[in-house]
């Protein structure tokens, strides 16, 4: 078995939302999008939290998480906005969720499909990194102006 090749596998990462999308979501008229997105973050977090280096118990079954994510994403495909620019922002949101969902389930599969009962530390650290970024994204959504100011100051 070529362990070297196996360890070189790229581990998927969490993808952050574009600042424009965060700004759109946090406007008072668009809070429904924010609520749905944060629900999805909570579900993705629940999927992986049992597999990181400081594991916690999850609340939902992985199949239930997958179904709930599917439902949320279907709802997002019927946006309430008509403006073209806003439609493109909703599309970005959906694209972001799609990528993060695939990454989370890939990591989940890598951590459950282990050999000899041992989960690779590379996978665990990748899950830690994914969850750290997910929590950062949540913080940015909660405090968009604080983080926008930090970014603009460089």
């Amino acid at each position, binding site marked *: 078995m070529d362990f070297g090749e196996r360890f070189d596998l790229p581990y998927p990462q969490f993808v952050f939302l574009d600042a424009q999308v965060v700004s759109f979501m946090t406007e008072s008229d668009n*809070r429904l999008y924010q*609520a749905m997105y*944060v*629900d999805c*973050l*909570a*579900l993705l*977090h*629940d999927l992986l939290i*049992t597999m990181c280096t*400081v*594991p*916690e*118990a*999850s*609340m*939902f079954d992985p199949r239930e998480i997958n179904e*709930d994510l599917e439902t949320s994403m279907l709802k997002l495909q019927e946006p309430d906005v008509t403006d073209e620019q806003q439609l493109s922002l909703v599309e970005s949101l959906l694209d972001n969720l799609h990528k993060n969902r695939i990454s989370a389930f890939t990591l989940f599969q890598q951590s459950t499909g282990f050999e000899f009962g041992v989960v690779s530390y590379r996978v665990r650290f990748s899950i830690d990194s994914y969850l*750290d970024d997910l*929590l950062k994204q*949540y*913080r940015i*959504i*909660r*405090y968009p102006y604080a983080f926008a100011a930090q970014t603009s100051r460089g």
Partner: protein
Amino acid sequence: MPNYYYGTKATLAWILGHYFFNAEHYTWLASEFFPYRLPNPKSSNPYQIYADLFQPWKDRDDYDKYIQQIRLNIRKGVIAQEKAGVISGDVASRLKEVCDRIDIIYFYPIVCRVDIDSIDRRRRQISGSGIMLHSSEELIADLREDEFDILFLDFNSDAGFRELVVDEVAATGTFSREPLPALEERC
């Protein structure tokens, strides 16, 4: 002598259980408050959870990673209760907003102490690290308020917190206002 188990949670989790989820509390319990030398991971260690909540609470550090995680965990509880039909969609939406925005003061840690022998075996679940690591912890998803004591509820310098939590724990039913607007006032 009672066989006490202990679980630490943020006050907001107690508030939601008490006022919105039929006074039932989703509670993880460990066989000791400080399970030193037991195979409990950090997340099953009430003492460690207490420290992880207390420090950012004391510092009012709302950017703390653990606080973000607890906000999401409590939100998961809201999602589960909405799915179970315990709360309406409208109440769930407002509670999720509360999870995101409420003042960090409501993450003050409290410790639930339960005489585990008084709980029916069928309600005691072993999962998570209890299965994987044989850690000494159990989940009771529907812990009732006459089944536990609250320890370390020693914070009463905030009037809103005192009214919603401290006075209510001392004598259930003393909070006479609607709890949801009271929480939203602190967002």
